[in-house]
């Protein structure tokens, strides 16, 4: 068993946004990989599912032994209600669960992208943020000042205005995010006012790694949910009144893309 911490990246955001909903992993695949790490290593991460027109946002938390893959449902009312897809089923209301791969089980979550920080508790850095107008900028500034390279990030605290998106339609033909998260054909948008939040995410300062976990120029990918209401998604921007930050430095980056043997995925014969 390794003692090294790692950022496990399943497929990449760049490939996802080009429409790759085919190179997926299941919760079982990820849990199997997590077995290589000490049980008590915390995990934090972000991802999405290949459920067509119901992709949603994954917020990973827990430990290597007991991971949780929280899923913010873009079809729920209100938007972004969170369930753990390890053991909970999406509500039958809303878009039927269909994945593009012929051989995926439509009823279980399949992840076309996930970035999962498997963290060594001994590397944890802690600090507080108070009265920050922009959570992302505050985190990036502090991590840059501390020479953080690749890390898992957790933020807990009282946030002010928060804007989130929940992807519901990552098209197979690709999605252009060069102008930011715009377009109600692809995202549900939510706005929240003051509440307690939990945010989890991953950070890579090196621009060459941005397309793995995010888009160019964005080193931090953060998802989160309101602690009481249990709803949220991809955090676009957030004001922070006061928050506790934990950042775990990661030793390795491991990129895994499953099922690359064939260029074109199988289509139905009849």
């Amino acid at each position: 068993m390794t003692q090294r911490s790692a950022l496990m990246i399943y497929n990449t955001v760049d490939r996802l946004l080009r429409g790759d909903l085919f190179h997926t992993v299941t919760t079982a695949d990820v849990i199997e990989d997590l077995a290589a790490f000490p049980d008590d290593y915390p995990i934090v991460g972000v991802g999405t599912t290949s459920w067509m027109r119901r992709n949603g946002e994954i917020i990973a938390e827990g430990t290597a032994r007991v991971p949780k893959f929280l899923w913010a449902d873009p079809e729920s009312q209100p938007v972004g209600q969170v369930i753990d897809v390890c053991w909970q089923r999406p509500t039958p209301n809303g878009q039927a669960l269909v994945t593009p791969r012929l051989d995926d089980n439509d009823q279980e979550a399949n992840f076309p992208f996930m970035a999962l920080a498997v963290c060594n508790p001994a590397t944890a850095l802690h600090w507080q943020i108070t009265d920050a107008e922009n959570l992302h900028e505050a985190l990036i500034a502090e991590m840059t000042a501390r020479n953080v390279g690749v890390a898992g990030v957790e933020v807990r605290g009282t946030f002010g205005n928060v804007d989130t998106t929940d992807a519901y339609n990552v098209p197979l033909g690709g999605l252009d995010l060069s102008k930011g998260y715009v377009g109600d054909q692809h995202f549900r948008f939510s706005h929240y006012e003051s509440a307690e939040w939990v945010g989890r995410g991953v950070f890579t300062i090196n621009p060459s790694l941005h397309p793995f976990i995010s888009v160019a120029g964005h080193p931090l990918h953060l998802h989160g949910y309101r602690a009481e209401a249990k709803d949220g998604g991809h955090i676009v921007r957030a004001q922070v009144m006061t928050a506790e930050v934990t950042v775990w430095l990661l030793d390795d980056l491991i990129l895994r893309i499953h099922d690359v043997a064939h260029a074109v995925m199988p289509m139905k014969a009849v």
Partner: protein
Amino acid sequence: MILLQGATPSALAQGGCLNVRDSRLNNSTALDCGAPVVVYLQPGNDLGIGYLEIYGVGGGKSQLLISIPSITYEIAPPARDRTLIEGAVIPGGNQSVGAYLMLDGTVLIEAAYQDGKPYVIVFDPDGSPRILYIAF
């Protein structure tokens, strides 16, 4: 996304089918035997305008759903990617087909089998018109 030409049966699958050999563009015996849409290219008329025709297949019949004049994709690229040209419902079910003009001048055709699994192809009008298949 990258686009590939149809793979041969030997490369992707055993067997094949004969129904794709009727001059349709989506004619890969490995990928298109059960396609929910069939795409033909009608040659240009006196004005030089051809038509990209998309038939829906379902419920034991096929039906012309979308007919796109070639000037749609021969003129300047659209202002935004993924501009919907036309959408329709495939007969025999509730699945839809959409034809989108892409920034590179290709036409993305998004359809679905009866169970909702997607069938997505790209018509490339440049050079010898052909169908491309998305790959990652």
